[in-house]
């Protein structure tokens, strides 16, 4: 070992080492505590609620780390979506753009198979919210509207002519003999926003939105003697027409 032609920086004073050490410990400590403060697992507790994050870690994170990590944009706990992706269903959206007379002028598919992988991936991120419907539960007892008000309504999917279509009923009409599910309000929020964008770009007046959905084929099919008919088939859900 030899030959440093240029001398190193002057020796670091002890106080600077201390300040640097404290800064490093605080920074990496905040990052580490944030990772520990993640909500545990996809499982629920005994009462069906999502399992709480570790108490101490989440308190320390809220007290010290959160306000520091957020502005420097390091506030993710690295329990990333990609880890739970394997068995998530495939989803793509189809927007049938129409003019004011209802004549179809264009069809746009999201993600766009012709876009480059970087853009296609960003489009697919938007669709994460469309992978899982929410269960629509009937009320435990009949809901009676307050004077001058109406009974709240809910929407759920019903199969009609090969497509799932939205059925809107008052909450007392939710079927009790079978489980039903419907789109989450977040799906509508994203779908409407994308509709506004597409109508603006294509000069359309409205758009009919269809979600194509297919469950991931699972490896048990290699062991199974038979697979139920219709399993893993593509299902189309019609969100109806939306005006920007």
């Amino acid at each position: 070992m030899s030959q440093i032609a240029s001398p190193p920086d002057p020796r670091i004073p002890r106080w600077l080492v201390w300040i640097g050490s404290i800064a490093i410990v605080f920074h990496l400590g905040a990052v580490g505590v944030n990772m520990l403060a993640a909500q545990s697992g996809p499982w629920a507790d005994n009462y069906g609620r999502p399992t709480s994050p570790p108490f101490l870690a989440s308190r320390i994170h809220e007290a010290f780390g959160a306000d520091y990590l957020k502005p420097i944009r390091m506030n993710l706990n690295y329990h990333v979506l990609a880890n739970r992706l394997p068995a998530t269903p495939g989803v793509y959206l189809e927007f049938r753009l129409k003019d004011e007379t209802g004549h179809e002028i264009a069809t746009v598919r999201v993600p766009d198979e012709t876009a480059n992988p970087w853009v296609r991936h960003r489009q697919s991120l938007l669709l994460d919210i469309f992978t899982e419907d929410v269960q629509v539960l009937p009320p435990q007892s009949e809901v009676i509207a307050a004077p001058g008000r109406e009974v709240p309504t809910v929407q759920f999917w019903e199969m009609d002519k090969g497509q799932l279509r939205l059925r809107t009923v008052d909450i007392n009409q939710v079927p009790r003999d079978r489980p039903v599910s419907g789109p989450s309000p977040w799906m509508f929020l994203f779908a409407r926003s994308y509709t506004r964008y597409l109508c603006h770009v294509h000069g359309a007046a409205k758009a009919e939105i269809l979600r194509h959905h297919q469950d991931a084929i699972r490896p048990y099919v290699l062991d199974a003697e038979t697979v139920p008919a219709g399993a893993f088939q593509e299902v189309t859900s019609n969100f109806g027409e939306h005006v920007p």
Partner: protein
Amino acid sequence: VRFWFTPIDPIGLHVTRLLTGSLLLAWLLLTFAGNLESLVGLHGWVDSRAFGDAARLAESLGLSKEQAPLVPGWSVLYWCNTSTALAVAFWASVAVVALFTLGFCSRVTGVLTWIVVASFTANPALEYEGDLLLLILSFYLMIGYLLMGQRRPGTPWSNRLFGPLLAWPLGPSLQDGDGEPRPSVAANVTLRLVQVHFALVIFTSGLHKLQFGDWWAGVALWFPLHPPFRTTLAEAMANKAHADTYLSLLNIATYATLAWQIGFPLFAWRPRWRPVLMGGAIVGWIGSAFLWGLPLIGPAMLIGCTSFVSPDGWRRALAWLPRRTSREAARSNQPSGIKSPESVGAVS
């Protein structure tokens, strides 16, 4: 203290900057060029009205700010109210990142590059884990170039403020006075921060995978190999004839992925395990790009892993490049007095 504050040859920092800058340019140009309005415009895929609706919806559902899905972070792009302003901001950002990549006034361009990355990753609707690796790399590089060379006696104020006009690879290394690399504490601290942060990310992500049955069962890689819409049931069942072999191979690949991630902190700092470190990163890149269709996370992870390469390792590798000068080659063949990360308590 030795782990963090031993001066090292800054070549590793410069190479990390060059690789990160190149990836940032690819990310900006391939993702945003031609799609600016769609991705970050006020009337894009998720427009300003959607953000307002989301805030109201979150409130009506009683969600906290942390639980609500559309809470944007800060971004300088919010000041760009017109398409022209957005386009100007975008191309200025590309120029800033290109200059930082080349080593031009790296103190200033380092800070601006981090602001660019933070601004273009602010849209929560399009938030992606790979973006966070870019934020990690750009943040630590900013810190490194802000600090490097500040304590060198006789440094002119312009250099302290802006950094050298041109740093490696177009100019000499940041602190060169006579053509030899000057050891830098800032370079070591920066690379250590990158290393430790990446080790935490990879280790945590590995443990998180264990919370899902498909990873425990060793069949997680089945799903990207048989994606919905592109695989028919008949195609998947065609593997039935050799199901045992097929599932065994999937098990091995899945558990190897888990072992690499969870064991990462144990081998990452050990020079003898470098082939495992780099091999795993390269396989991860290929897998994430071709199996999962994720173009960004693989190269970002690979850059994080290259931060573990010692200065001597980089000198030897660069000596192989045809355009390197004979002086570089000669230097790489001489034992250096500059300490490499492995020699300063790497596993401490």
